[in-house]
């Protein structure tokens, strides 16, 4: 997605720039960089309204001027992606880029060309998810990968024998990257763009969600509804210190803890949907 960059000049610089940032945050501006003369502010181009910015400036104290330019979308992560190291999850998986040679010492080979999406296995949470996924029985199961990023978990699930795999992500670049990586791995996976509502009435035997605590807390009940009784909901993307809050919410929904695992500060929760009496 393209962004608009507003380069603001403020007189006096402070507190004008600070107040400006505070107000721009209400106009959907996402991030800011302080400069010697004011501040640079960034907004996704589909949310930008220059009129609103002009109106806002009128109401603020101090002299505020700006220049506005559009920044074309590009893969800012290209430098890291160009020479990343493969990731090994015990002897279960090796996640590698197309420029790495295949290594037959591993049970499963996964090709990932990330293109600015999350999920190469370098992060503790992806590693934990792959490790846990490997030990679940996926044969014949229907699997959901919620917030798929690169699609690494969906691809792994398919390679482990899942019958049907559905992946979704709300971000444009993740949605497209999941599709690209599925093609690289020559597997069949259905991909949708959007949030949890895209799954409709589908029911899954295993749901995988490596997102963050806030999204998991708000989507947990939708995941539970879409899970077979006896099915697994495997969550990550949060810290060890968040486990208790998530576990309490899970218990209220009839989910029982099957396993809690951690790597450094990050944690994974494997939950089972129990029969409600």
């Amino acid at each position, binding site marked *: 997605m393209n962004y608009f960059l507003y380069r603001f000049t403020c007189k006096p610089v402070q507190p004008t720039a600070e107040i400006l940032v505070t107000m721009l*945050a209400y106009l959907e501006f996402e991030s800011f960089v302080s400069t010697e003369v004011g501040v640079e502010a960034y907004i996704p181009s589909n949310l930008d309204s220059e009129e609103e910015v002009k109106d806002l400036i009128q109401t603020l104290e101090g002299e505020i001027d700006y220049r506005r330019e559009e920044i074309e979308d590009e893969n800012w992560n290209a430098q890291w992606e160009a020479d990343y190291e493969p990731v090994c999850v015990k002897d279960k998986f090796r996640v590698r880029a197309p420029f790495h040679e295949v290594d037959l010492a591993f049970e499963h080979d996964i090709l990932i060309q990330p293109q*600015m999406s999350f999920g190469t296995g*370098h992060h503790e949470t992806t590693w934990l998810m792959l490790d846990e996924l490997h030990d679940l029985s996926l044969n014949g199961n229907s699997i959901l990968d919620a917030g798929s990023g690169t699609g690494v978990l969906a691809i792994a699930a398919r390679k482990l024998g899942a019958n049907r795999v559905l992946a979704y992500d709300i971000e444009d670049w993740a949605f497209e990257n999941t599709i690209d990586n599925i093609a690289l791995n020559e597997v069949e996976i259905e991909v949708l763009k959007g949030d949890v509502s895209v799954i409709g009435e589908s029911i899954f035997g295993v749901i995988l969600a490596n997102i963050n605590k*806030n999204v998991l807390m708000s989507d947990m009940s939708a995941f539970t509804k879409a899970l077979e009784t006896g099915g697994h909901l495997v969550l990550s993307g949060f810290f060890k210190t968040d486990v208790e809050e998530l576990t309490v919410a899970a218990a209220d929904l009839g989910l029982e803890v099957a396993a809690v695992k951690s790597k450094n500060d990050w944690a994974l929760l494997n939950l089972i949907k129990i029969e409600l009496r």
Partner: protein
Amino acid sequence: MAREVSGLIKLQIKGGAANPSPPVGPALGAKGVNIMEFCKQFNARTQDQAGKVLPVVITVYTDKSFDFIVKTPPAAVQLLEAAKLKSGSAESNRQKVGNVSWDQVREIAESKMPDLNCFTVESAMKMVAGTARSMGINVKGKNPFNG
């Protein structure tokens, strides 16, 4: 051996909302850092302050690793919260739209002391009170600086 610093990056990002777009993407990407790794960590660490503007200082090392510290929100953000306002005054020059107490000003000043060029809490309080006035927020009660 201590890691060698290759650069410091200072940004302000909404809590829980870092993504690989500009300015995060170009700033970190140019240094060869895995941007997605930063976003995941930043969003997890700031999830309880979702949507609030947070200053962050990222230290990038020559081995492409990084660490970062998240600071308290800018005084203006804290003032809006203290005054229980959704946004600042639309007519700040003419009309006051909210109130904070001097105790609240002191609290905000204390939380911002490490980031301000102030040697005393009193001078930080004066700065915060000045920001409040510019935003159309009245500082209520006896002014501790007037005798």
